[in-house]
């Protein structure tokens, strides 16, 4: 058997995400082994729980190191993946990032760290590309209000957003962060309402996203286009928010209706695995293991340096995205992935941008609440 290491958050606060990555990796594993494994041997995962904390993840690295795994995949939070990346660079173990999207993991990065999924710059740019695209249709789009949690991901996405807004000539009329765990956004939304922003750029996890969407209605806050990152990407968002979810846009690394080959098949398998509507989290888990297996197959030996060398030369098409690790804009080992903008239309997440990958047209503008 060929064993690869996985460090994932299976317990603790990030377990919700860990579970999904795990499911995605399992689907990839089944696919790979059904196709004869790698190098003619079955592939197995040596999974270690990091309890959602960095120190356990570091202990897990040592433990996997003792098992001599050729590479390790992990983990979700940047507070865990950051220290992992540092240690693994020193110990010269290849790391394929599982969930963490923080820029700092691959910028400046290291020769040992690879990320096939997006980062905050790519995601923020997708949002602003989308806004620009809307502005082509309606040149009155000018002002943007930003609202984000104070976690690492929302904060970095907000930072990028602020930079891009300036670069591309939007006026930021509101810029507010909130402490995660807050459930009452009325004070902020009320404030935004008096600013009458054209665009609303929100970065919030699931619960917060739902609360924000509901309370926008409650305080009667309107915008021509609304983007809610992360929170709005989950199927549960539509369940919880119902009709209020219509027109909301969100950026993901993968969606079931994107125009890549094999997407439908992957969708079915992911869905069968979890029994629920799959999300980009599962897809990213799947992606990471596919990248790993591809490298192991191509490597001269299972020596870590060999594995690293071929990882750097990855050129792989998957139903999730195309993968090639490049150095650009200060990033290193980063896949310049094309993120997708989804919009919620009639209770479904629909890919609407970039246009060449889109399944439907964008619905614009968002009608005001009272007219829905």
């Amino acid at each position: 058997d060929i064993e690869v290491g996985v460090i994932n958050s299976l317990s603790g606060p990030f377990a919700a995400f860990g579970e999904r990555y795990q499911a995605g990796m399992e689907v990839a594993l089944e696919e790979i082994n059904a196709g004869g494994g790698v190098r003619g041997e079955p592939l197995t995962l040596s999974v270690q729980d990091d309890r959602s904390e960095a120190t356990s993840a570091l202990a897990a690295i040592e433990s996997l190191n003792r098992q001599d795994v050729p590479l390790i995949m992990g983990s979700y939070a940047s507070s865990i993946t950051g220290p992992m990346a540092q240690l693994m660079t020193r110990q010269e173990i290849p790391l394929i990032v599982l969930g963490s999207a923080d820029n700092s993991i691959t910028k400046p990065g290291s020769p040992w760290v690879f990320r096939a999924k997006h980062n905050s710059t790519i995601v923020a740019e997708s949002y602003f590309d989308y806004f620009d695209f809307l502005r082509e249709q309606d040149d009155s789009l000018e002002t943007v209000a930003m609202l984000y949690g104070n976690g690492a991901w929302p904060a970095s996405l907000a930072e990028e957003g602020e930079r891009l807004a300036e670069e591309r000539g939007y006026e930021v009329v509101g810029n507010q962060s909130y402490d995660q765990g807050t459930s009452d956004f009325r004070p902020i939304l009320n404030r935004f309402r008096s600013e009458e922003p054209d665009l609303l750029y929100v970065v919030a996890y699931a619960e917060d996203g739902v609360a924000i969407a509901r309370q926008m209605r409650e305080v009667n806050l309107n915008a021509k286009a609304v983007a809610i990152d992360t929170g709005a990407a989950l199927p549960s968002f539509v369940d919880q928010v119902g009709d209020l979810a219509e027109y909301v846009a969100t950026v993901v690394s993968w969606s079931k209706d994107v125009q890549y080959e094999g997407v439908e098949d992957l969708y079915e398998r992911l869905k069968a695995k979890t029994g629920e509507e799959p999300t980009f989290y599962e897809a990213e888990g799947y992606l990471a293991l596919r990248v790993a297996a591809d490298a192991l197959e191509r490597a001269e030996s299972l020596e870590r340096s060999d594995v690293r060398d071929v990882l750097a030369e990855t050129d792989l098409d998957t139903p999730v995205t195309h993968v090639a690790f490049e150095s650009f804009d200060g990033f290193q080992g980063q896949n310049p992935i094309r993120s997708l903008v989804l919009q919620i239309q009639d209770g479904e997440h629909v890919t609407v941008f970039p246009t060449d990958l889109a399944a439907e047209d964008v619905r614009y503008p968002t009608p005001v609440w009272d007219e829905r």
Partner: protein
Amino acid sequence: MKKHYIIFAGLVMVGILYPQMFPGYLSVAITLLLYAGWATAWDILGGWAGQVSLGHASFVGLGAYFVAVGTAHHEIAPWWSILMALVAAAMLAYLWGRLTFKLKGPYFTLSTIAIAEIFRLIAINEGWLTGGATGVFIMTLPEPFGLDLFSRQVNYYLALAFAAITVLVVMLISCSKFGYQLRAVREDEDSAMASGINPTTVKLKAFMLSGALTALGGGIYAIFLSFIEPHIIFYLLLSVQIALTAIIGGRGTIWGPCVGALLIVGSGEIFRTTFAEANMLIYGLLIMVVVIFMPRGIVGEPARYLIRRVYAKRAQG
């Protein structure tokens, strides 16, 4: 007391040889040593002086941030930044204590949670000072005498030194005048005053010492992780873990916090690898069981039982 010094010397010897024997298990050992040191430092205030703090993550954070921001943003060598952190922690503890020491028991404890939470928010929101919510990476460190401060070995010996220093400090305190003043204040402040002790001063000294030592560990922690994020490092759960470690081991005993660290970190690591998703559940149960059957801690409970029993024997005989 002598036997404590012998145990101490023995443990330090084992500690020095450990990396040679188990080079593949350093991260766990570092975590254990850090917790042993933190819990021991916490215990100066929480155990010996009887003021249960659930805000010690603030001091860990202070130490960690001085080192991380110092190297990452201002190019200050970690030994200088740790030194500054020690002073800052002592000053912080002084002000903190001045403000809250008139509160007793649970009120004091709750106030520490509140203050620590405020520090967490400051660390997150004041990006100009701390690097903000996205955290701080330590990319490069100076190499004193050619030592690579990032290497596990060096991290390990730093953590060992930290744990050894705190335990030594507590050993020295425990049989000194100050140690008895601490215990007196813990037992009964009025009665302590009648013995000429100023409870506030004594508690302040304990808090300053405890805070400074905790910050020392925090600085080493930052080097160990090389990436710190305010949510994690100023988190209530870290404070709770530190207090938990000391209390489970036995408050107000020299070895209790170390034994607590062995149990908490050790069992955490074992459960993590054996019980998969259920590991935190088992861990929670373990805590409950230990506390229910040994409310004064693993070291504290038998010690107390032995003393009383020996005495009962003698009284009867």
